[in-house]
């Protein structure tokens, strides 16, 4: 699955991870699937509900968070299509913990935050047999010239 995201939404994802550093930050990706392309059209940062002392390496979004995201998606006439979260001072690759809690058919954006600044963001999708993730290419749209 190829994923498209605007530069502004990608910045919002990475900015959330920077704002929660040195803890993990997370939220939902809203958008729509068109054939083999998943278009991210909005991001919903959510407060990490994991116990405070463990948030540096854990995050959780509750069923209530998920239900609220579904309602917001309905208002915007899109779907909840993925999740984003940050890895403080760690690679932007899924952990075993990520795999064990992963939901199929969703895109998982992971941002590596190094010393408080976003280093890179990759997208991942759970394999059908739940054995691990495959990476997905991200196309950033509306990239402003620097």
């Amino acid at each position, binding site marked *: 699955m190829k994923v498209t995201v605007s530069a502004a939404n990608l910045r919002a994802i990475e900015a959330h991870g920077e704002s929660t550093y040195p803890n993990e930050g997370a939220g939902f990706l809203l958008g729509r699937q068109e054939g083999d392309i998943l278009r991210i059209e909005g991001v919903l940062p959510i407060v990490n509900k*994991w116990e405070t002392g463990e948030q540096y390496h854990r995050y959780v979004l*509750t069923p209530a968070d998920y239900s609220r995201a579904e309602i917001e998606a309905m208002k915007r006439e899109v779907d909840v299509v993925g999740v984003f979260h940050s890895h403080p001072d760690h690679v932007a690759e899924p952990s075993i913990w990520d795999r064990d809690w992963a939901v199929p058919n969703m895109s998982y954006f992971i941002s590596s935050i190094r010393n408080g600044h976003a280093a890179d963001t990759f997208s991942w999708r759970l394999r059908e047999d739940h054995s691990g993730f495959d990476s997905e290419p991200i196309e950033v749209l509306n990239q402003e010239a620097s």
Partner: protein
Amino acid sequence: MATVRIPTPLRPYTAGNEYVTVSGATVADALDSLVEQYPDLKPHLFNEGKLRSFVNVFLGEEDTRFLDGPQTPITADSKLLIIPSIAGG
């Protein structure tokens, strides 16, 4: 008969259906009925016979984990919802 609402990411395994009618007297029965109708859903709901970590089953607004879990009784009017919780690290 009771109904189960399927969240968007699992609908590819229920032929796109948002609601599925199920039979049974408990939540466990209802889930058995659900995966009997849609066998492709089973490995995504269960792992080694237990509900996967992300799967929460609500009876109306109540998390059945805080009722009687799988043995929570249901009626023909019950509305069950499968709602993911998202976690990782």
